[in-house]
């Protein structure tokens, strides 16, 4: 790849970072919303007992981290739609830069932003006494966080390339993403209910949350081994990024 492509990737990454830092509302809500979930659900359900769960807060934390990264990354992917509506996409597409670089730049920028948010939530969870497995576990956690981010950006790109405005996005969020998130074991184990358990095998979010939990937390039984989850998430990530790239490269303004 020529150096001009790297320059382009850098500036697109930088643009994502600048936009995130300058949008006070996005900054605040991206941290505050997951924290609400963490505190409120965490303290509310503390007294409930789920089979196989020692400490609910430790169980919940990975789910919240996954949720934060998921939403943030999807937002980055969907922000292509902002650019489409506000005309900036034309400027991006008319530049002598390959669509591939455009996708990489945007994905890296979005993933960086999402990871920052994920790490902040992780640190807060740690400070609340969540029991974390060692260094290897943390590294594996970062791997999962990165894969979740890339997958979600890819998904956002698919939506942005196929849609004309934000109405469809709201629909997908409410009718698809939210149910999948609740059925992913982010907030409660899905093993108790056999129907839910069956659904979870087809739910990509399940493998993400389960894997994140398996890497990060000690003392909580996960459904699959983290390695199995990792494999599945890797495959899903490739597929989603591939789809996102394909559809984005085909979109015209």
């Amino acid at each position: 790849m020529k150096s001009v492509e790297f320059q382009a990737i850098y500036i697109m990454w930088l643009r994502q970072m600048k936009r995130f830092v300058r949008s006070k509302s996005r900054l605040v809500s991206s941290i505050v919303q997951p924290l609400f979930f963490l505190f409120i659900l965490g303290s509310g359900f503390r007294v409930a007992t789920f089979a196989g769960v020692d400490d609910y807060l430790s169980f919940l934390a990975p789910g919240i981290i996954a949720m934060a990264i998921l939403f943030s990354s999807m937002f980055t992917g969907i922000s292509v739609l902002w650019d489409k509506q506000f005309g900036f996409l034309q400027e991006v597409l008319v530049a002598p830069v390959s669509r591939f670089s455009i996708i990489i730049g945007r994905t890296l920028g979005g993933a960086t932003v999402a990871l920052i948010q994920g790490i902040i939530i992780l640190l807060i969870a740690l400070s609340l006494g969540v029991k974390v497995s060692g260094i290897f576990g943390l590294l594996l956690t970062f791997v999962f966080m990165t894969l979740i981010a890339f997958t979600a950006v890819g998904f956002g790109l698919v939506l942005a390339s196929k849609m004309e405005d934000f109405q469809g996005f709201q629909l997908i969020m409410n009718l698809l993403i939210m149910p999948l998130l609740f059925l992913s074991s982010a907030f409660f184990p899905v093993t108790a209910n056999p129907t839910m358990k069956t659904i979870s095998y087809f739910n990509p979010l399940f493998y993400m949350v389960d894997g994140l939990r398996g890497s990060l937390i000690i003392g909580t039984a996960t459904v699959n081994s983290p390695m199995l989850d990792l494999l599945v998430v890797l495959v899903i990530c490739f597929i989603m990024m591939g789809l996102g790239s394909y559809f984005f490269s085909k979109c015209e303004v």
Partner: protein
Amino acid sequence: MDIIKTNNLTKNFDGLTAVDTISFSVKKGEIFGFLGPNGAGKTTTIKMLTTLLHPTKGSAEIAGFDITGSRDKVRRNIGVVFQEPALDIELTGGENLEYHARMYGLNRNKRKTRIDDVLNLVDLEDKKNVIVKNYSGGMKRRLEIARGLMHYPTVLFLDEPTLGLDAQTRRAIWNYIGKMNKEEGTTIFLTTHYMDEADFLCDRIGIIDHGKILVIDSVTNLKNSVGNDVITLSCSDMVKLVKRLEEESWISNIEQHETFVTLGVEKGEEKIPVIIEIAQSLNIRIKSISVRKPTLDDVFLHFTGRTMRDQET
């Protein structure tokens, strides 16, 4: 040297032919305009020439590079100012230019000076660190022109450059475009539905309507082809005057409107005294009389049978 060459360029959208086998060429260094009403196919043509849309049929070359085969090479040679603003309103003016510079591979030394140079060209130096959200419409358009020039393009495409702007800003933008053309030798291809804009700026104009090019020629030739000076007058008895004037051979056409009459004549300024004499001989009082050179509206009427204003209503 032809810097833009198209060959039967065509674009269909689900059965609607937006651009219908157009072939034309633009010489290096000229200011060329597409004049036509909304929906004529101007924006679609620009999108194809700037590699944003694939043509359905036909081909085009810009600076010798094919728009489908060598897209990146074409993009390197062109600057584009779109009809809708294509700025990032969350960034400053300077940052928008910096973004552009990096996307086009300008090296660091060139970048800084070039940003200041183009901002100076459009009188926006003091707005460099202002977030674009806070720019007026005219400032945004000027910034986009500055941005289009950043990478020293051979051709600058402008799609309706003064749409929605006030008279003063329009004049200012015309001056910038003219300056660019003279000082940097940039070939300009613009689309517009404003007569005065095409008249003021363009060396040559192509009149486009319903996706087809009707005629391409210099502005002067086009106006001369319509031929006639137009005399407009109002008087105390139009019917009687018109009847009498119909006998004069040097009047090529007479049109009676509600409150005035228009006549097509050669050398209108010499015919006014003649008309006044004729009127006086019939005891008709001339209330007002004026002569004007044909405008592009008359040209459009001549070639399409309708004026652009009729077209739009």
